């Protein structure tokens, strides 16, 4: 199997972060706004949003979307 080192690392990282019960991408997009607002304010993440944090640690696409949302929110705050 010719996976690159970063790809092997990525596989180990997602396996490590895998939990028996996880939310999917559709649930994530509906709740990630609250998670982003709390992070923007530097507030702690409540237990109810830990599933979002876990999902972002294993889902590259949702993580990318979250990072862009964060940029957009910061931009809104500047206006």
């Amino acid at each position, binding site marked *: 199997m010719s996976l690159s080192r970063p790809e092997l690392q990525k596989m180990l990282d997602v396996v490590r972060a895998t939990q028996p019960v996880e939310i*999917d991408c559709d649930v994530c997009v509906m709740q990630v706004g609250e998670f982003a607002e709390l992070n923007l304010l530097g507030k702690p993440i409540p237990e109810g949003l830990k599933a979002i944090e876990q999902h972002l640690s294993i889902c590259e696409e949702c993580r990318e979307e979250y990072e862009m949302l964060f940029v957009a929110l910061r931009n809104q705050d500047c206006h």
Partner: protein
Amino acid sequence: MTQDRDNYEWINALQAEGPLRETAVFDLREMLLIGLKAALKSRSDFVASLLDDFVQDSLVRILRSLDQFQNRSRFATWATAVAIRVALTELRKRRWRDVSLERLVADTGFEPSAAVEATPDQERPPIITAMYRIIGSNLTDKQRTVLLAEIKGMAQEEIARQMGCSRNALYKLSHDARQRLKQGLENAGFTAQEYAITIH
């Protein structure tokens, strides 16, 4: 006006009829335009001519999903998150639509037999050798395909399309694959600390 509305006012206006709704839709469009521009500007595959389509598609999706807004964030934040999902899904589709899933997975050089034959290699951490073996022997063909395609960075929407399944079904396959791999590594005696190694 856009910034003055609270969540209740947004939802109320967007679910109304006539001028109240028209104004709210106009304001939402303007807000998405600004939000998406800021969010996408650093992407090399984004071209400004796509922006209007992204905003229009996002508006449709948001207006159709109003009942899913749980009022746990600002409405503007929720709407922007949905719009980013819509835009990135389209950009990812464009990037991956001509890539064959079968070929991508085949190009990893991975076959079940290769994993079974994987022997300890002094230059390869034992956990990687174990991972090869487990992927080959413990996962179904579909689970292996999803896992490898995701690790290769292929868009989930495109993997689902080429496998003929829904995005939710794909996520379940991926989750099952990761769980089996994790269980296999634990059964082989690898602890969470050992997963945390950095591969050099």
